[in-house]
């Protein structure tokens, strides 16, 4: 048993940390957030050149052949810089589904790795909340292919993606687990209408209307009617990835807050000398460490049996939601008035944590599923 990183992993971690330190300070990040696309094409090119976009892909697809720990390291460091570039949407979600697709679809992995293709995974619907099985979008057989009709909401990177993977119902009723299929859809195909907008953490998302969009059976990702398992599997990986991002953010908030209380003086002394505040910061510290422990647990159990791995990922998601809220609230409280300002980075970190909570199922939803799996 060990919790050490390999030499290669340490190099990766250092490389991402250096990028964040040198090229992604808060000012630079604000400039990126102001761009129409919601990310910087130059930075994306840098990611490609540094090989980061290849990390989770298998060597046979031209990837680095990395594992869950490699992605975890990268995401944690990106979290510390609140990096907006759509690694999660394009590489982890879209790329993760491509990897599970047919050879024809896997050929796009090369373009993802070289940074020339942006992707998005469109699964959430207005009525679905966090239930992946709740799919009202219809895919009706039409000759050799299918015709898609429906609406997807809050699609990460959906406004700028070149290609989408869309969940749609090919059989059964709206809430059935079986009968969901995934389709690779060109974002500019006839009948695709996108409404791009911002979330409070700066990321660019879209609602996507599908009206008589025609796809062929070659665009089917995975088996017909068996899409749910694929979605669950890739979202499980993505949950560990955002868990790592959250841990990076929480550590950053904790460290920033402790530093602030060492310099901020009231009543003639640094406010960090007050025991009432010290104990609150210890609670922040413990919340960070406990969340990191569940991150390691989830990362380590990805190779263990499925039921255990699912519970570990859900436990992580619950903790990210609850401990993340504690750390965010305390960061605000201990910063006092200045914490309320947009010009300080604290609020931006907290808003990203809040968005991570609702991503893929919030703490309450995840805890309910966790309890159900306990039997």
């Amino acid at each position, binding site marked *: *048993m060990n919790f050490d990183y390999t030499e290669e992993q340490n190099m990766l971690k250092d490389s991402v940390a250096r990028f964040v330190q040198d090229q992604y300070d808060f000012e630079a990040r604000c400039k990126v957030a102001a761009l129409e696309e919601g990310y910087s094409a130059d930075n994306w090119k840098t990611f490609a050149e540094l090989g980061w976009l290849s990390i989770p892909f298998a060597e046979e697809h031209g990837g680095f052949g990395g594992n869950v720990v490699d992605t975890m390291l990268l995401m944690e460091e990106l979290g510390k810089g609140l990096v907006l570039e759509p690694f999660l949407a394009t590489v982890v979600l879209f790329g993760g589904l491509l990897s599970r697709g047919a050879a024809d679809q896997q050929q796009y992995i090369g373009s993802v790795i070289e940074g020339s293709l942006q992707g998005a995974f469109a699964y959430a619907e207005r009525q679905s909340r966090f239930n992946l099985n709740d799919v009202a979008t219809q895919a009706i057989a039409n000759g050799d292919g299918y015709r898609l009709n429906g609406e997807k909401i809050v699609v990460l990177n959906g406004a700028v993606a070149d290609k989408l993977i869309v969940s749609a119902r090919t059989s059964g009723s709206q809430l059935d687990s079986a009968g969901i299929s995934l389709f690779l859809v060109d974002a500019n195909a006839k009948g695709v209408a996108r409404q791009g907008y911002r979330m409070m953490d700066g990321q660019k998302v879209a609602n996507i209307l599908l009206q008589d969009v025609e796809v062929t059976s070659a665009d089917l990702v995975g088996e017909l009617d068996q899409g749910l398992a694929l979605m669950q599997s890739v979202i499980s990986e993505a949950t560990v990835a955002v868990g790592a991002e959250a841990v990076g953010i929480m550590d950053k908030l904790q460290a920033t807050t*402790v530093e602030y209380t060492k310099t901020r003086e009231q009543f003639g002394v640094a406010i960090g*000398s007050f025991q009432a505040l010290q104990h609150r910061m210890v609670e922040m*510290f413990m919340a960070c460490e*406990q969340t990191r422990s569940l991150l*390691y647990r989830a990362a380590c159990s990805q190779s263990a049996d499925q039921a255990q791995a699912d519970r570990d990922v859900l436990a992580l998601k619950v*903790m990210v939601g609850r401990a993340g809220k504690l750390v965010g609230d305390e960061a605000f409280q201990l910063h006092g008035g200045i914490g309320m300002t947009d010009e300080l980075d604290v609020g931006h970190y907290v808003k990203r944590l809040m968005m991570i909570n609702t991503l893929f199922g919030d703490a309450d939803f995840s805890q309910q599923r966790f309890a159900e799996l306990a039997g």
Partner: protein
Amino acid sequence: MDTTFSAEDLAFRDEVRAFLTEAYDDDLKARLADKATYKEAQIEWQRRVNAKGWAAPGWPAEYGGCSWSATQSFIYENERSAAGAPDMLPFGLKMVAPVIYTFGNDEQKQRFLPRILNSDDWWCQGYSEPGAGSDLASLKTRAEVDGDDYIVNGAKIWTSYAQYADWIFCLVRTDSSGKKQDGISFLLIDMKTPGIKVNPIIGIDNRHTLNEVEFNNVRVPKANLIGEQDKGWTYAKALLAHERTAIAGVAASKKELAEIREIAGRELSGGIALSSDPLFQKNLTDIEIELMALEYTELRVLAKAASGAHPGPESSLLKIKGTEIQQALQKLRLDVAGHYAGIQTEEAVGNEYADKARVDYMYGRAATVYGGSNEVQKNIIAKFVLGLK
């Protein structure tokens, strides 16, 4: 990063299971549960474990430790707890022994360590005093030099199991001229020495675990001083981190959580198993998720310790979270007991798990106080981890 068990680890797990099946038998279980036979049974249990060579896995190998990897320690603790077998009492093995083998002289090591391993001596801890709790260094029990002896006067309090003890390790004041942390010495005292009086304290659990120990002109040979006179605080501090790590009780809490879940599956509320009640599930999984995290926090600390580092301020985190989880579990067991929550009788009245609910809950209030209160632990983290002055 890897926590999978190797083939050797799995073989070790099988060996532990086989040992527990044989050594922790029904007869011993019954005798441990009976107040009248508890002391002898606890001693016998430790002797069985010691015969296997596993009484003190954490000690250096030259004194009888096992040189287990972090994984092996983890496996042993989990298997032992899952089997319901009690832990060794910590006072000798985990508290005084590390001080003796780290700071004691050769004669003391030879004299005390083998007897601690085999539970030939029952030890208790003489730290807290009526006027010195969280502010332990303000202790006043005096030891004055008289020829080759010290003469000890004063009182210790909250001393668990002093009524059974053969020996007590004490912090005593040998100099009061300087800083309160200076001038404290670490003494080993034979409980049979004239002038020692043990006064029982009945706890809120209605049991006799705690005591006050009085010292009236108790003569202690200088040979029983550990290390140098006036340097005892340094030795005690080194020991406290071991104590805190031991208090976390992760494996025991896992066992308790599984038991509560099982009981809630049998308890009916409105004709439906309590375990399917959403509020119960929320309460249980709140604790379970914190516990799953703490298990890995402990593994991270163990893995660090296995690479040679001493338990540091992070052991305070284990103590705080571990005791919070224990108390939350005690509350949950009490809630599950319903009408039976307060039963205080050894007669069969229709519920076999609720007496434990009351006893554990009431005695369990001490967990956030002993071993350095959780607030003191937070002070330690604030100062030594976060660097707050």
